[in-house]
């Protein structure tokens, strides 16, 4: 599934001023492609990611996944589409505090029917080394464990598009590697992924690195394969 962002502009009101978060950004991420976006704080990276994920309506522009314009769909349909096709990993994890690790990983089943969800959840728990934590609630987990849970939740439905916002920002090298390996594996299996990161090593796992400054993409470079 290709992800196409065309002439995306996002402005928002802060008091009497209009703040320009993203300006005239166009970007295509092909199926099986891993794109990293880097840039200074406030450059518009996270905003662009939220727009791409159907979580924040842009002021102008289109977001198409496999030719379907996300924001032309009614909100309910967009939510259903997101549940089925888009996996989002947040920097702040956004786990539900009253659910266990296992239950948090399974939350997408609230929105989308996944016949093998239980089996898949067990596989992800094992893959992310969370077996001993599967019945624990997020308050008892470390930051690295929370991020692994958030990543597992994003991957449960085998999404065709993966959007990760600073997924390694709070993690040590070992945990970072686990999360990035998982995203890479999903991309290798055919998903399109965008990773927003400050981390050079994380960006190095991508196929292409884009740089944003002042709400726009300034450069794009291919990452050399070893």
């Amino acid at each position, binding site marked *: 599934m290709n992800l196409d962002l065309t002439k995306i502009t996002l402005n928002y009101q802060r008091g009497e001023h209009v703040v320009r978060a993203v300006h005239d950004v166009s970007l295509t991420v092909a199926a099986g492609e891993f794109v990293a976006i880097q840039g200074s704080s406030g450059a518009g990276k996270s905003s662009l990611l*939220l727009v791409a*994920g159907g*979580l*924040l*309506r842009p002021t102008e522009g289109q977001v198409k996944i496999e030719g379907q314009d996300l924001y032309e769909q009614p*909100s*309910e349909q967009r*939510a*259903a*589409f*997101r*549940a*089925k096709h888009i996996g*989002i990993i*947040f920097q702040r994890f*956004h*786990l*539900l*505090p*009253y*659910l266990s690790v296992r*239950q948090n990983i*399974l*939350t*997408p*089943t*609230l*929105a*989308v029917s996944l016949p093998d969800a239980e089996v898949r959840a067990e596989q992800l728990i094992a893959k992310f080394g969370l077996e001993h934590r599967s019945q624990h*609630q997020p308050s008892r987990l470390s930051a690295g464990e929370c991020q692994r849970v958030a990543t597992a*939740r994003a991957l449960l439905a085998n999404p065709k598009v993966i959007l990760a916002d600073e997924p390694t920002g709070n993690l040590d090298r070992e945990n970072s590697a686990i999360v990035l390996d998982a995203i890479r594996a999903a991309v290798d299996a055919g998903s399109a992924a965008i990773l927003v990161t400050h981390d050079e090593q994380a960006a190095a796992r991508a196929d292409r690195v884009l740089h944003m400054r002042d709400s726009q993409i300034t450069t794009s470079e291919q990452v050399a394969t070893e």
Partner: protein
Amino acid sequence: MNVPQLIWLEILYRKLSFAQALAVLVVAVAVSVSTVLVVRSHQLKAEAHVAQLNDEIRKITKNMGFNIDILPKEVNLSDLYANDFGEATMPFDLVKRLADSREIVTINHLRPSLIRKVRWREHDRDVILMGVSAVVPWTHRKNPKKPLEPAVPEGKIIVGAVLAEQLNLKAGQEVVFRGEKLILEKVYPSRGSSDDITVWIDLAKAQEMLQLPGRINMIQALECNCASIDRLGEVRAEIAGVLGGDVQVIERSSIALARAEAREKVKAQGAASLDQMQQHATKQTVLLAVAVSAIIGLLMFINARQRRYEIGILRAIGASTRQIILLFVGKGLLLGFTGAILGCLAGFAMGLRATANLAAESQIQLSAGDLFVPELVAVVMVATIFLTALASWIPAVTAATQDPAVVLSQE
């Protein structure tokens, strides 16, 4: 993963918060219910007091007697007014015809009597003999009235105050009246009328003594005070409709009218007091309901508002607006239902306790059944559940319809 599961897991996670919300809800509902019950018990007691007062007034005024006399057409009214009775008689059957009629609505208490001035030979003096029977019941009327004056039991005699005093008669003693041995049932207190020198015996015995079997010379009745302008005219017309021209009808005493008016006045005053109390109670209840609604609404609103972050997460992973609203409204319904039931139970317990204290201070006892109002339970249940659901629904629907990123960024 489904919505009920999420509701349950969230409640388990925030047990204390749920218990606090439930406790506030139970207290609010219980205070409302108990207040309504206490107000209701006051009202029931006031109603009972007014009824009691009415009955006492009825008892006090009943000795004022009947005010409608139905007489044989042959009675000369001049004689009647001079002697208090007329000589002419009529058949007892006329009373039955009146009692069986559906057309008679303006009079109550049909009492046939046979009256004569006779010699009480044993004491060598003239007295008025009044043979009376029990009030003849109306065939087609429900809820019979309490008799104004009781019948004289067979073998008994009742005498007026002056007679008793002059002849030194005491209740319970045996007296001989015109050759008949009778027990003195009671002595009527002085009425300041010819009743004071009257002897009352059973109608059948009087007819036998006077050799007038099956005859009477007066039917006494009480006008019901329900006719309109020409009261006597309407009574006469009704009776004439049943008995034709065989009888004449007179209004005997304005005292009886005063009696009816006094009772009407007491009834009206009682009704006005009850109405005032009802209005006062209604105002109090409405104010209380508004205060309790505000508490419940605010409680649920704050709870749902504090959980906007969760709404953002659930929307981000693709949960529908419907699921999110169900999640919050479902919890609201559960809380509202549980709170309403426990609150009603606690409220009834508190109300009964308060009412028991009130009952101890007054003569009137009220049972739990008197105070249980199914409508109150229904209204409290529906209102509480509706309020909790509505107060959960508003912030949930507001957050669920926003872009998830906006909700998450606000938290």
